[in-house]
Every structure is written in structure tokens, then in C-alpha cells.
């Protein structure tokens, strides 16, 4: 059969991110895929060599707008490994709380976008409504909705106040309840099943071969998670479980993220309850010559940092490896043999990282501001219901929407 090359990019069709895929297709089937990256290569490893050890956390925080605490966390752990610095208990708990809150908002973001991609804007709006308070929690605890600036070599920069905790508990309870409700709806929805089950399967062998990370590898039934594989912060001091799911398809990847959300919210609650008193940082005077490895489980998988020092106040070499770097090449294993229509969804299922910093307001054609997120949810739900009624099909997600009405 005749082969055609379809270019996807240089912007991702679903996530506004610079990647370029060349899909080779025969009819509707994808037979080969070539990936081009580097459009946003900023030379941060080289730039880091010109910054002092204390400035680097601010630099690496800007690698990613979503998992912005994972990079500084992995970096400070690398320097602490290099210099043999012991971090106070209270700082370890604060690090855990920030890292898990980040997973909560990041997974909510993805679940919402996934719903949006397959035409379920109801899901998108509901999920993002529950994500917003998590960002408010960040603002309360860290002083910023994104880029928290919390990590420093030897501890954390800012202490938490117990006065903020009742609000955080409330938001986490709300997140758990909302996630469980949404999980039930997603698991039972026949349309979602049809779109995601058996689509873009990453087998166990390919998951290991491509060294995939995070929810991508755990959706193939492999319990790889840095939080237990090489415990850091306070993860070995609280009870929680690594979430895995069998199947390796888009459905499994969504399921892992939904189930992880609940675990993360529980970790945040436990850490707040057990937060020990004491200092939040060890004083660090200078960094000796040597080398260190630090890594952390970001929402998308392991973030890896290697730092080498020659005794000066800047790193001699700083190597960074983000999780999407190893997850994206696995498209070669998951897209080939699938329909073109599913290729974009499959590539979005690994949650390749992009920065979302914009907020929006809807303005009617007469210039009136239509209002807040609630109105958007209402409009979206009305539209979905109208379309579904025309088609004569009621899905569990619709029924869920009805039960939540009013």
C-alpha cells in the first residue's frame, strides 16, 4: 500500500508544546514515527555552570512550569549527596507536602485535558474547578501559585504556619471526594472505554526497554517509583502505596493518575498532622569538591540531577534528565499499528510536559464579562447534554452531572 508521511507539529496537536512528529501511514494505520525535539532547548545545563550553588534552584525551577518543584528538589538532593549535608526533619516533611501538592495539581490538570481532548468538556471543567483551590493552597503555604521557590541546599526557604492547615485539609478532603466520584464515572463510561481501552498499549517489555517512568511505567503494571525505590524527603515516614494498573493502554494511564491523586492528598494530610517542630534548614557554608546524584519522583516520573563540584562556588558540571525525555521515545512502541485518529491521544497520554500560565475570562459579544468558571461549567454541561440527548445516549458522566446539579 502507498505510504504517506503526515507531519504533526512543530506544535503538539493537543498540548501546545514544541515537538514535531513525522507519522508514516498506510491508509489509516501508522507504520512508523520519527520524533524531532529540541525546539525549546535552552542550554540550561551549560547555563547552570555559571550560577552559584544557591542560584541554581531558581534556574532549574524554570525548566518546567508544572512540575516546578521537582527539579529544585532533585538538584538540592544531589548537592546534599555531594557534600554529605543532613537535612532537618521538619524540612523533609515540608518538602514532601510541596512535592505531593504539586502531583495533585499536575494530575488534575492532565485528567481535565484528557477529558477535553476526547470531547468531554464536562470532565475538563469539573476537574479544573477542583484544581483551582490547590493553587490557592500553594499561594497560602508558599506565597506563589507556581514557582514556589521553596527548595534550598540544606532545607527549605520558608516555614509553614499551622494556621494555614485547616484550609489545606479542607481542600485535600474536597479533592479526594471529587477524585473518587470522577474515578467512578470514568471507570464506568462506555464511550471513554471505547476511546481508551486497548489503545496505545505499552507492553511490560517496551516499558523496561524504553526505561519509561512515572505513571507511564506504572500503567504497564511495573511498580517503579523513586519515592519507594530510593526514599527521600519524608516518604519512608508515612504510610502510602505505589499505584499500578495493568494494561499499558491510555485507560490504564488515566486510571493510575486518578488513583495516585487520592494517595497524594492523603500523604499531604498525614504530613501536616505529623509535621515535627524544629529548624527548617541546616547552615551550609561551602560546597566541597566531589560529585552527587539526586532524583525525585515528579508527577511525570523520575527527575534526575547529577552535580559535580571542584570546590568553587559554581557547579563544574550539572546534568539534568527530565521524565518526558524517556517517555516520549516510547511513542515508537505505542503509536505504530494504531489509527491516525488515536496517535495524538496516545502521545498525550504520557503527559508530555508544557507550561500553562494563562488564565482566561469569557467575554460576550456585547462586551459583558460572562463571569467565572461556574458559568463555563454550566454552559459546557448544557452543550454536552444537548448533544447527548440528540444522540439519545446517556453516559454515567451525564448522570453524575445531573446528580451534582444545584
Amino acid at each position: 500500500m502507498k505510504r504517506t508521511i503526515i507531519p504533526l507539529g512543530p506544535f503538539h496537536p493537543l498540548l501546545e508544546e514544541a515537538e514535531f512528529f513525522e507519522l508514516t501511514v498506510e491508509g489509516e494505520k501508522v507504520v512508523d514515527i520519527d520524533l524531532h525535539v529540541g525546539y525549546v532547548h535552552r542550554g540550561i545545563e551549560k547555563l547552570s555552570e555559571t550560577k552559584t550553588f544557591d542560584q541554581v534552584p531558581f534556574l532549574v525551577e524554570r525548566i518546567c512550569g508544572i512540575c516546578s518543584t521537582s527539579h529544585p528538589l532533585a538538584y538540592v538532593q544531589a548537592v546534599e549527596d555531594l557534600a554529605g549535608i543532613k537535612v532537618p526533619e521538619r524540612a523533609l516533611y515540608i518538602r514532601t507536602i510541596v512535592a505531593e501538592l504539586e502531583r495533585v495539581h499536575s494530575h488534575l490538570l492532565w485528567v481535565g485535558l484528557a477529558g477535553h481532548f476526547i470531547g468531554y468538556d464536562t470532565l475538563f471543567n469539573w476537574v479544573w474547578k477542583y484544581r483551582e483551590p490547590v493553587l490557592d493552597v500553594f499561594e497560602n503555604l508558599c506565597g506563589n501559585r507556581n514557582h514556589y521557590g521553596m527548595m534550598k541546599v540544606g532545607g527549605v526557604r520558608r516555614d509553614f504556619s499551622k494556621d494555614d492547615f485547616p484550609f489545606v485539609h479542607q481542600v485535600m478532603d474536597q479533592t479526594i471526594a471529587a477524585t473518587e466520584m470522577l474515578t467512578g464515572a470514568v471507570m464506568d463510561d462506555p464511550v471513554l472505554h471505547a476511546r481508551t481501552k486497548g489503545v496505545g498499549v505499552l507492553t511490560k517489555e517496551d516499558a523496561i526497554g524504553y526505561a519509561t517512568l512515572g505513571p507511564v511505567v506504572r500503567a504497564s503494571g511495573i511498580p517503579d517509583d523513586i519515592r519507594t525505590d530510593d526514599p527521600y524527603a519524608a516518604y519512608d515516614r508515612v504510610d502510602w502505596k505505589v499505584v499500578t494498573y495493568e494494561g499499558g493502554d491510555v485507560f490504564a494511564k488515566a486510571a493510575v493518575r486518578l488513583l495516585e491523586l487520592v494517595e497524594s492528598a492523603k500523604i499531604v494530610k498525614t504530613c501536616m498532622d505529623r509535621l515535627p517542630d524544629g529548624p527548617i534548614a541546616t547552615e551550609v557554608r561551602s560546597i566541597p569538591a566531589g560529585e552527587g546524584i539526586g532524583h525525585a519522583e515528579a508527577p511525570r516520573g523520575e527527575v534526575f540531577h547529577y552535580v559535580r563540584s571542584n570546590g568553587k562556588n559554581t557547579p563544574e558540571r550539572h546534568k539534568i534528565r527530565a521524565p518526558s525525555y524517556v517517555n516520549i521515545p516510547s511513542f515508537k512502541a505505542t503509536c505504530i499499528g494504531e489509527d491516525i485518529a488515536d496517535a495524538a491521544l496516545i502521545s498525550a497520554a504520557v503527559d508530555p510536559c508544557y507550561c500553562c500560565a494563562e488564565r482566561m475570562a469569557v467575554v460576550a459579544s456585547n462586551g459583558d464579562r460572562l463571569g467565572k468558571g461556574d458559568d463555563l461549567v454550566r454552559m459546557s454541561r448544557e452543550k454536552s447534554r444537548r448533544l447527548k440527548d440528540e444522540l439519545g445516549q446517556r453516559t454515567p458522566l451525564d448522570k453524575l452531572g445531573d446528580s451534582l446539579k444545584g
Partner: protein
Amino acid sequence: MNLSKAVSLNELRRTYGDRIDKCEEVSANRAYVYLSPAVLPKVARFLHKEHNGRLATVTGVDTRDGIELLYHFLHPQEHLFITLKTRLDKPSPEIESLASLFPAAIWIERELYDLLGVTFTGHPDLRRLVLPDSWPEGVHPLRRDFKGLSES
């Protein structure tokens, strides 16, 4: 945990003890193994196939007198990082590719080829990864002698 109980590290020493140069245990779960470029692929295969080692990434460092490559293998069950450290000669550093062992090495090696000018023999698709197509051939920004591109 104590590194003396790390099965993968002990097995590595037992099997390849006479072919590795040095083994340093720098902390409770970080070990660095120094070896020659000829032995490295065999040890990498051993760690991956026999002891579930996952190649986290490869760090390349220009040490001025040569190129140092560090292969970071994570052994999840043992909470252990084993880093294989080898040194390649300038001006044309070369080592055997690990791409036939696992596809995860394909991008890692392409990046090192791109930024540090290391050639991986037996690589199925050794071409530029992150630098733009218009970047001049033979210029590698992570080399110490790189001072930027001329304006022309």
C-alpha cells in the same frame, strides 16, 4: 542500608573484579565503578539483564584531557545507584553503543553525540537530537573549548 549487602554490586565485583579498575562506595546507596571503555558495555549488559538495572541517563563531562562518561544505573529493589565511569580519549572519543541492549539508549547517545561529539559505534541512527539543523558540524557546546558561535 549497607552496601556490603548489595547483591548487584557484589556480583559485579565477583564477575568482573579483575577487569574493573576501582570501585568506590561514596555513600549508603551510591557506588561508582571505574572501568575501561572496552569493558563497559559488558558490565552494562550484566547490570541490566541480571540485576534489573535501569539506565537513568548518561552524563558526559569534558575534563579537558578527555571525555568522561558516567552511566547511571538505578537498582530499584536495592535502593542503589551504580554509576559506571569511563574515560574516552580526545580528539575523537568513541565507545560501543548500548542501543542494541535497550532502546532507551538511542536518545541518550544521540544527545551526547550532539552536545559533546562522542561517537557511538553500532548506533542505529546516530544523528543530531537537540541542536538546530543549521548548527555547524563539529561544534559541540558542552566541550570546554566552546566559546560560542561567531556572528557571521
